């Protein structure tokens, strides 16, 4: 099978090919390496590659298969990880200069689960430094470009993960989502991206941005593939106290069963001003599709929606200011060469090692936790967070999933928002409340603008209701398959 046809396939299809023996894992790995060679100079999804290791894992998978010891559907399938997820012996930079020379001595739990499933773990994917941003413009190693339009951002912070799937540099990738960092870039790059319920996927080994909001989740061309990857990485982890002790159902199996149309809620606060017309049109078309399939469409209200961005920026930055304190130039992080005393080591290493956005958020977060301000900011934000969660609880008494656009606009140009942090923060306005409420949410491609930029549809589900959520998304995706369209990256 030629390499261009291999890389256009979904993970599920590749798994089928491997099973019937029409290709080998090494050929698949080779095909992706060639594609990365071909397009990554333009896209810049990857921060680091270890081709030798990648091919060796693929060969090991082929050997297992030859002996009849295949580990499952993902055995031999490449999966690339955002550069905040630890892989033993591989660098982890978080797209920051301060971790320039750090190599992780251990595997994240998701990495271990992928290895146990036989997945072939590939290169390290670009992001906004420490996952702080919505465009990957905050990467210390240069931005990733949107494969659909190289002048546009891929979204962020998991822009490398979304762009790699869109540019067919990997069939599956993992990102992390703190306020929309999986769903927004998935939307902007025209791929499927899912943030699971908080506690569904272990955070052990994920360099933390905001601990109470972070979740690792999959990117793929189809909902079916997302289900396959999600069921592999989910489940309780004794190394993460916030991971939820529940059984993980087989999502792939759920998608094979006939789904029952259910009630979808449209929160009016998500359909107000600020939404691009073409985005609105595409989302309305998707609503029409669901109606035609027998879904009940329910208008509802999430009155606290406008509080979610300010609440998020108080909580996420507070946690970040503490989580990022460990990057101090003392141990494994890069020490400033200009430091002349102990205080200098901290101040200069962090001053030189962190980018502007990271510094902005650390300062903001430390301020919100300071004595005299804690009650007014952090405590108040936590209380408001409870109200936001209660809004969703009430909504889910009436509906099974909530449908919204993922992002108010399609991909924007480089520099368009980077000078104005507030406008950048508002690009996550539709995704942030899901994290504050701890709910699962996914973005599924629902069309393109006239100029050819992808548009994403967001579906939000009940806590630990991933099965239902995937099944609702699959009903749409199965008949539209926008994620299977590939951008033209030829000169």
């Amino acid at each position, binding site marked *: 099978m030629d390499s261009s046809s291999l890389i256009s396939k979904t993970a599920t299809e590749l798994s089928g090919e491997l099973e019937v023996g029409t290709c080998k894992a090494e050929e698949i790995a080779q095909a992706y390496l060639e594609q990365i060679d071909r397009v990554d100079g333009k896209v810049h999804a990857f921060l680091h590659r270890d081709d030798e290791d990648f091919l060796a894992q693929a060969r090991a998978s082929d050997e297992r298969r030859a002996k009849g010891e295949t580990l499952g559907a993902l055995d031999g399938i490449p999966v690339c990880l955002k550069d905040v997820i630890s892989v033993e012996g591989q660098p*982890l930079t978080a797209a920051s200069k301060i971790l320039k020379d750090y190599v*992780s001595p251990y595997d994240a739990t998701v990495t271990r689960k992928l290895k146990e499933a036989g997945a072939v773990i590939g290169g390290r994917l670009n992001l906004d430094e420490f996952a702080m941003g919505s465009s990957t413009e905050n990467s210390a190693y240069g931005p990733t470009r949107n494969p659909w339009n190289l002048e546009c951002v891929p979204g962020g912070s998991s822009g490398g993960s979304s762009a790699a799937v869109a540019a067919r540099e990997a069939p599956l990738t993992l990102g992390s989502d703190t306020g929309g960092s999986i769903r927004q870039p998935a939307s902007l790059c025209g791929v499927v991206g899912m943030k699971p319920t908080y506690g569904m996927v272990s955070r052990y080994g994920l360099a933390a941005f905001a601990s109470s909001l972070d979740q690792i989740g999959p990117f793929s061309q189809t909902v079916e593939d997302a289900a396959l990857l999600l069921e592999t990485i989910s489940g309780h982890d004794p190394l993460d*106290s916030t991971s939820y002790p529940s059984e993980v159902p087989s999502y792939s199996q759920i998608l094979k069963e006939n789904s029952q149309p259910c009630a979808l809620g449209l929160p009016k606060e998500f359909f107000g001003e600020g939404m691009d017309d073409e985005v609105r049109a595409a989302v309305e078309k998707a609503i029409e599709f669901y109606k035609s399939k027998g879904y009940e469409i329910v208008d509802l209200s999430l009155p606290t929606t406008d509080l979610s961005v300010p609440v998020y920026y108080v909580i996420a930055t507070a946690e970040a200011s*503490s989580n990022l304190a460990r990057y101090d130039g003392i141990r*494994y992080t890069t020490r400033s060469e200009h430091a002349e005393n102990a205080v200098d080591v901290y101040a200069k290493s962090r001053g030189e090692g962190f980018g502007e956005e990271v510094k902005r958020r650390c300062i903001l977060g430390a301020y919100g936790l300071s*004595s005299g301000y804690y009650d007014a900011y952090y405590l108040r934000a936590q209380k408001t967070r409870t109200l936001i969660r209660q809004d969703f609880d009430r909504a889910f008494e009436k509906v099974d999933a909530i449908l919204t656009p993922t992002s108010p606009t399609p991909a924007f140009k480089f520099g368009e928002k980077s000078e104005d942090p507030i406008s950048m923060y508002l690009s996550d306005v539709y995704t942030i409340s899901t994290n504050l409420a701890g709910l699962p949410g996914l973005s599924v491609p629902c069309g393109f603008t006239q100029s050819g930029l992808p548009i994403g549809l967001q579906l939000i589900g009940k806590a630990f209701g991933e099965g239902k959520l995937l099944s609702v998304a699959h009903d749409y995706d199965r008949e539209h398959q926008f994620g299977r369209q590939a951008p033209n990256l030829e000169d």
Partner: protein
Amino acid sequence: MSVKYETVMGLEVHVQLDTNSKMFTRVGTGFGKPPNTLTDPVVLGLPGALPVMNRDAIEKSIKVGLLLGCKIADVCKWDRKNYFYPDMPKNYQISQFDQPICEGGEVEIELPGETPAVMGEHRTVMLTRIHLEEDVGKLTHYERDSLVDYNRAGSPLLEIVSEPDLFTPDEVFAYLTSLRNSLVSAGISPCDMEKGQLRCDANVSIRPVGTTTLGTKVELKNLNTISGVKQGVEYEIRRQTKALENGEEIFQETRRWNPDEKRTTSMRSKEMAHDYRYFPDPDLMPVKIDPEWIERVEKELPEKPFDKQRRYMADMNVPYTATSALCGDRPLCEFFEQTAKLTKDPVKVANWVVNDLLRELSQAKRESEEEDGVSVEDCPVSPESLAELINLIEEGVVSNNVAKELFPEMFSAGKSARELVKEKGLEMKSDGDEIESLCAKAIEDDPDAAEKFKGGKEGAINALKGSVMKATRGQANPKIVDEILRRLLSN
């Protein structure tokens, strides 16, 4: 007329809990291991590492709370104390801010009596709270560099905070001694101050006698031994009194005790106090302590040292001096009680344990090359063996003097009393004929003494006894010698 001042002090005592693993990870705890060997990603605060609570640390904290009569929290939570210092790999310490595991409680103390043989006055010192936190690493400063050892970092550490309820250096000494005895005997911690297993900061203030408001508080650090604590607060009381007498002001500050120069020096003033930006640690769930758990721990509580002392004195007639040597040491008490059960006279047993056993143990400790020396638990003389020796005296098989000489040999050779007696032929000679002939010979050899005794000089018989004992190398049963001599001399 000059103003008289009184002192008010409170102590913050840190105790390392004797758990197998660290507070938030599986790595072991211990003292004296090569630097930075008791570490893992969690201890080192590597990107992505997460804490998981050690159940035993909670259980030991509950035990301490129950021992000291505290109220145990239904729910306790974990907070981050944020500050930059190289002894903390994460640059925050996981501690408890506003919901400590224990509140209230008290420590019974004994003040010095008129002489060491007289029991002093008892009173209770009130506690404010006890909270659990992780220990920090150990810094060693050199001329240019400082080195850090994270072996200690992340060990569970209990902070026991007293009310300002200590008024003299003697009370401070008594408080620490009592607290240490309770904690050691309950198996909470070995409380070796040299190993940093027990550390103490003292808050010292003075005020004019008759006033009720507290004076300005000075915190003393680096008090590394119990007598160092006493000396440190003694110095500080003198310093503050002198300052007030000279019309100077006391500043709220932290001062360091210098044991070599025997004085305190200023470390930092209140103005330089940290803002620790406490907030709940989002990586850890609060811990719910159900009443059944508390009940179970309560059942396993050991007898408190002072209760034990009162029981020994009241029920067993053991003198105060012996009980005060016994009761701080639970294994020694167990040894005593086991031995006492096997003999008729607990007072004799107490004296053997307190004098002979302790002497041999401390001798063995001095000679031992091992760090911890020989403890009573692995003492070569078992309670059965000591009881046998004491019973041999009781039965008249050996004399008290022979027994005293035998004991060190039992200790060093690990042989039983009976074995040694047999081996060395040390049974007391109670054979009437043999002793009678020796007595007759003694009278014959020293007619002078015999005459004197007959003449009413009672003491003269001792010379005769002496020569019989000498002839039998001390093995003649003194009772029988006495009987026979008197019979022969009365003829």
